[in-house]
């Protein structure tokens, strides 16, 4: 299902962010595409290089990379917290870099929300006042904004804590406040900058579930940053992997695992529990005539992990059926064991 770039809720085209003496001049001198060696040689630090991506309505795009890979800078270019050196950022087809400051404030007030790694709550305000803050700066009257804030506080599961101050809450609860605040204005686009990285692993998992629960209700357009690949495959519709300021690959989790663009991506995917990620369709073999098959069959859309027991228990390969029951391939015990125990990237599907 190929979507057109025009349909994107938010997109960026050839975005550059260089730090140094005169980044604009430097880029212009190289016709907008300086060779790698020249950037460092001239003393510039490239945070983002020639990045293009789209986020479609209702989609979760996870931007994944190690620290220093430029993912935070890129998402700040999308929200224009950082001014890109070059390129364009399209919000509903409109170039954010060209609109006046006043209009930008209006877009942020109504259409964008952002969650921060270290919560960035205002310490002198109660939970209620923090959540109501974006409404307050719009000039919405107190009764209305507090009513709205209370609804969201309940939505994120903090009912009864509205009079508390941030320091009286645990890390997980504080991030719930951060989430509630970013949702207060009912934004179309939701930026999350490593929202769960500062939390303990158990809380992190709980918050991921919470996040997915909210998203099934709200269907926001989401750019989500993480350095944790497991988190990325758990949450993402699509993943963009960044390295040294470049986007090296964008694709669904399954695509990244089955067809990594380079060793860098392969490195991340190597330790992934692929049987939980891959469907039967992506590892099955084409049906061969006269092949001896087991009596049982599996559906091609099922995850391998869910049917592995059945397949491994059978001496003979199983038939793979599509939704209408038609045979589309076969899957053998050897194939599944390879997937479970070999660490080589699978080639199949």
């Amino acid at each position, binding site marked *: 299902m190929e979507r057109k770039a025009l349909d994107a809720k938010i997109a960026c085209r050839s975005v550059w962010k260089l730090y140094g003496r005169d980044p604009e001049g430097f880029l212009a001198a190289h016709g907008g595409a300086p060779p790698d060696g020249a950037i460092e040689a001239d003393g510039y630090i490239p945070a983002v290089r020639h990045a293009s991506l789209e986020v479609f309505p209702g989609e979760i795009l996870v931007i994944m990379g190690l620290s220093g890979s430029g993912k935070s800078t890129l998402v700040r270019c999308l929200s224009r917290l950082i001014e890109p050196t070059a390129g364009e950022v399209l919000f509903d087809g409109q170039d954010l870099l060209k609109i006046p400051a006043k209009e930008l404030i209006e877009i942020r007030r109504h259409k*964008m929300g952002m969650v921060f790694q270290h919560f960035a709550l205002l310490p002198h305000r109660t939970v209620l006042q923090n959540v109501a803050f*974006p409404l307050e700066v719009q000039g919405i009257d107190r009764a209305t904004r507090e009513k709205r804030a209370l609804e969201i506080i309940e939505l994120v599961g903090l009912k009864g804590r509205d009079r508390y*101050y941030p320091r009286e809450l645990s890390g997980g609860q504080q991030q719930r406040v951060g989430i509630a605040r970013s949702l207060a204005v009912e934004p179309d686009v939701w930026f999350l900058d490593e929202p769960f990285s500062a939390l303990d692993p158990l809380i992190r998992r709980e918050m991921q579930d919470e996040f997915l629960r909210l998203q099934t209700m709200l269907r926001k357009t989401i750019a989500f940053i993480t350095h944790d690949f497991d988190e990325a495959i758990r949450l993402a519709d699509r993943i963009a992997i960044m390295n040294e300021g470049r986007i090296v690959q964008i694709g669904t989790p399954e695509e990244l695992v089955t067809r990594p663009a380079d060793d860098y991506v392969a490195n991340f995917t190597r330790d992934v529990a692929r049987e939980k990620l891959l469907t039967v369709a992506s590892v099955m073999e084409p049906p061969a005539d006269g092949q001896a098959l087991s009596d049982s069959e599996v559906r091609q859309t099922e995850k391998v992990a869910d049917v592995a027991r059945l397949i491994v228990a059978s001496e003979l390969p199983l038939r793979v059926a599509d939704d209408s029951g038609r045979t589309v391939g076969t899957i053998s015990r050897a194939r599944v064991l390879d997937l479970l125990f070999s660490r080589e990237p699978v080639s199949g599907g």
Partner: protein
Amino acid sequence: MAEAAVLSGELTVRRWVAGTGQSGIRVALFLLAPSVFVLLIGPLLPEWLRIVPQEWSAPFVGWINAAVEVLRREELLGLLTFRDMTRAIANLIDYPLDFVEAILVAGFSESVPGLPWIAVTGLAIVLGWYLQGRQLGIIAGVCFAYMAIFGKWELSMVTLSVVLVAAPIAGAIGVALGIVAYKKRWFEALLWPILNVMQALPHFSYMIPVAIFIGIGHKAGTIATIIFAFPVMARLTILGLKGVLPEVREAGIMAGCTRRQMLWKVELPAARPTLMVGVNQVIMLCLAMVVLASFVGAKGLGHDLLNRLRSLWIGQALEIGVVIVFMAIILDRLSQAWARKEPEHMREGPFHVRHPFLTAGAAVVVVSYILAAFVPALQLWPKSLSITTAPLWDALIDDIIIYAFDYLELIKDTLLVHVLIPMRDLYLMLPWSALLVFAVTVGWYYGGWQVAGIQALFALYLAFAGYWERTLITAYMVSFAVVVCVIIGSIVGIWAAAGPRRTKVVELILDTFQTFPSFIYLIPAIMLFNVNDFAAIMAIVIYATIPTTRLTIFGLRTVPQDIVEAAITSGCTPRQVLWKVRMPLAFPAIMLGINQTIMYALFMVVIAAFIGTTDLGQEIFRSKADNNAGQSLVVGLCIAFMGLIADQLINAWARERKKVLGLE
């Protein structure tokens, strides 16, 4: 004992040299180079390179006085002179001053009296309780009750009212300047060096210009206090605003804040911890200054202390000193508790449940007024019932003098003859060109050309201001005092850093001592050594030892634990851990402590001039008597620049050293 101290100090230096390798040699050069230069090359220099001839000196004093004269006499816009305007502005300060004083003690009229002393004491208890807890409430209550019962109530309330008026004004000016500097780069570039110089100027340099443009009196003292206290607030406002976490700022932007909303709703509230440090410091500086401002006619505790000291009524002076100390302690504790106070969610219920302390405060006021209407002693503690401890103190001092006089004299005379006077003679040989060469070389070595250039300006100013000899005498007193401070401070610091309980006790003592207005430190010095050079140095030592001690403790205790553990597992004895690991790592911090000690000493040297010295401080005092604004400023700048030379060199050194040690 003294020998042991010197020995240990020497040992310290030797270990530093041995333990820090390359930089040890640098330290030695740092210490030795100037003296070698003076002794070997000094006498060979032509006269004008040693001391700038009087006719070459820049007539700074004349210029400033001429400018002052113009501002005093000439009418701007054909209407008012500058002095008329400053006086008009100063008159405005009378309204809040009178108002606060009326509330606290004086009353508005016969029928509307001020707050009874039990009300103020009760409010202090409620405030302390609210800000921190019952304990602070009790301390506050005891302090205020002491002021009343010991017959110092009215004086105390006058002093308190100046602090309560001056501190908010100074704070507001500081915050306003800080905000502008945060928003406009060029303004910050302009303001920052001015703040540096202002904070290095001794208290008295503020007083004479104020006296000239506003006159002598209570409000002049208040204005001088405000001018003295605002720079620290401006500086901390800039630091606080710059220190707001980028994420918090981004959260504000993403919420769609306008620039004004950012400042008032996000940045200033998020900078609260730093701002509150500023509030505490402003309050303490105000108290220190209002006590000193008695020299230009401020009323209150300082005024009486000054008079008692002038008449050498030590017992009574001590008594007032104790009240000032109590005032300092309670103001410091309350403002620190306020700074630390975290917001807590409100309980639900009727007004008195939601606001228990507000209710209690209102109740205290009402009940006190009713009680005081029937029992006058609760309105103002009667003189006849006041307790005085002065005779007790006098008797104690007499005893000390009788028993210890000979020893004290012996110590004093030995030090004067064998150390102080030779040292002074050596210092007086120092050519200005030597200072210039030294300051520029060291500045260039550690800080590059920019630092070297600023150093050159400072040194040239000192040489050409026309007070070179006085500068040297100041330098001699300060450096002797600093050496003593460093020896005492590092020994106490090392002792205190050896265990958490010791640290706690010593830090509590230091914290308390540091809040005392510097004026207080003259009392014991005069008490023991009467009025002379030596007493002045003693006063400096008592006051200026605090920062070295504090930062020695800090430096030793913040050495990363894993490094200490690595040393222990390598088989170091406790002594080796201290000298080979902790001391070298703590050394940059200790140097910053010494830096502060130098600043403190320079401040104190001016105040100590009150008890008779022949240095720059004395010149400031003389200029006060003559109303010579030019001289007071020029000499004040001499002291400020001496401090800034040391400050800049030590900071440049410490920065590099920390980088080398990976401590930043």
